[in-house]
């Protein structure tokens, strides 16, 4: 490992229009290895749209995305190898068992066939899915389904992990476990997570960015905030309760 900070995601000037409506407007985002970024914002601020653009599910109207130095728009297949993505709705095939599903996800991400079994055991261990490998996903509770979704996102040990509201539907114990997992993931890879829960950001993130009405309105390191004794809640209110449109 070199001590020069390694940039894993750099997105510049990212914009996306849906017809005449601008969902995301000129968003810049940069993430280094070993960093956990919390993306905050009220509903409809453009967090999910931004994440869809970072994972190649949606083409930006303008701007560029580089994942580990590979251009996502010019070379999507290469760039997507580095990404693990848990969308808002976990993409689960409900008719499959947990094992069958995770095996399929591993194959999709080019995990070496000889390594699949060990990878599967490891990821189930990490996400607390040990005893339910043979269960149909359909029969699992929302919390377990969410965990299968997270397992799917990290099965190929990606450099960049993008989690859209990962703790939704989990009980308090599971939320704590997931936070520990995210912290752990944040050591080896970089993580972006979006959430509404402010304590979650304070608990697991190194940096926080706040979006409102499609633009990035605030960005700071959490350590810095703590040093200045600023409360995240106050900042969130201050930047998202403004009535006048920001930016455009």
């Amino acid at each position, binding site marked *: 490992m070199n001590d020069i900070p390694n940039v894993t995601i750099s997105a510049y000037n990212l914009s996306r229009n849906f017809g005449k409506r601008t969902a995301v407007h000129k968003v810049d985002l940069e993430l280094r290895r070993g960093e956990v970024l919390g993306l905050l914002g009220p509903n409809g601020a453009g967090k999910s749209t931004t994440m869809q653009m970072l994972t190649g599910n949606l083409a930006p109207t303008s701007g560029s995305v580089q994942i580990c130095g590979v251009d996502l728009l010019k070379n999507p297949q290469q760039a997507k*190898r580095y990404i693990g993505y848990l*969308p808002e*709705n976990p*993409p689960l095939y409900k008719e499959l068992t947990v094992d069958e599903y995770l095996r399929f996800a591993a*194959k999709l*991400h080019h995990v070496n066939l000889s390594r699949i079994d060990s990878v599967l055991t490891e990821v189930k261990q990490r996400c607390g899915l040990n005893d339910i490998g043979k269960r149909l996903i359909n029969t699992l509770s929302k919390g377990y389904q969410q965990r299968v979704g997270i397992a799917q996102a990290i099965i190929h040990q990606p450099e960049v992990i993008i989690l859209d509201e990962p703790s939704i539907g989990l009980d308090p114990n599971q939320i704590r476990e997931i936070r520990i997992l995210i912290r752990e993931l944040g050591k080896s890879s970089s993580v972006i997570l979006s959430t509404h829960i402010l304590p979650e950001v304070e608990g697991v993130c190194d940096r926080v960015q706040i979006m409102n009405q499609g633009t990035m309105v605030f960005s700071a390191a959490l350590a810095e905030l703590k040093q200045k004794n600023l409360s995240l809640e106050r900042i969130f209110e201050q930047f998202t309760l403004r009535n006048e449109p920001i930016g455009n």
Partner: protein
Amino acid sequence: MILTIAKKELKLLFVSPLAWTFLALIQLMLTWVFLGQLDAFLELQSQLMQIANPPGATEVIIVPVFAVASLVLLVATPLLTMRLMAEEWRNHTMTLLISAPISLTAIVLGKFLGLMIFFLLAMLLAVMLSLSLLIGGTMDLGLLLSNIIGLSLLAACFISIGLYISSLTSHPAIAAVGTLGILLALWIVDVVATNTSSVIQNFSLLRHYESFNRGLIDSFSLAFLVLFILTFLILTIRRLDGKRLHG
């Protein structure tokens, strides 16, 4: 990667009762026709012998079996293709495929191949049924081969158009109705043709299949069906790409 997706499609098919019901039904119907024709053939055999160039067992028994098989396929395809794309969008699982480091072409071809393997399996039942005639006599294997090629191509046409229609909507039921409508229209489009050389006849899938059914491997029909398959596969890929671009 195409194979991984094809395997997943097959697995999803076989965990649902739909696939098994379909296989059972097609087998039941084909056997019914087969036995009926066999009975007729045995009854008429003595009379047929007196004709100068009598139709053989293959022509009397197998040709109608394959003609019925094509109709069963026409009705069943919409039910099997409807969920290929539409359900992936409805259940948000398409995100998993799009986020993975694979090309859109691989996704579409994998899905196509998965269902094609399933149809070939159904066809294998029909072929084994036909080959059982060998126990009692000789067969025109060339005619059988031409029927197999024709039915495979027809199945591929049905799948490719079903796949495309399914990619247009996130409601499997709409995809099914749309596909059935278009398949029926393509089946009977030639009824409006007033003379036999009308251009519109070329668009009738039935007409192309009929020549294979009679044992005629017509290069024009062959080319038409292959181009038909390719066109709809490419349209599906473009549709997937368009979804990414336009949301």
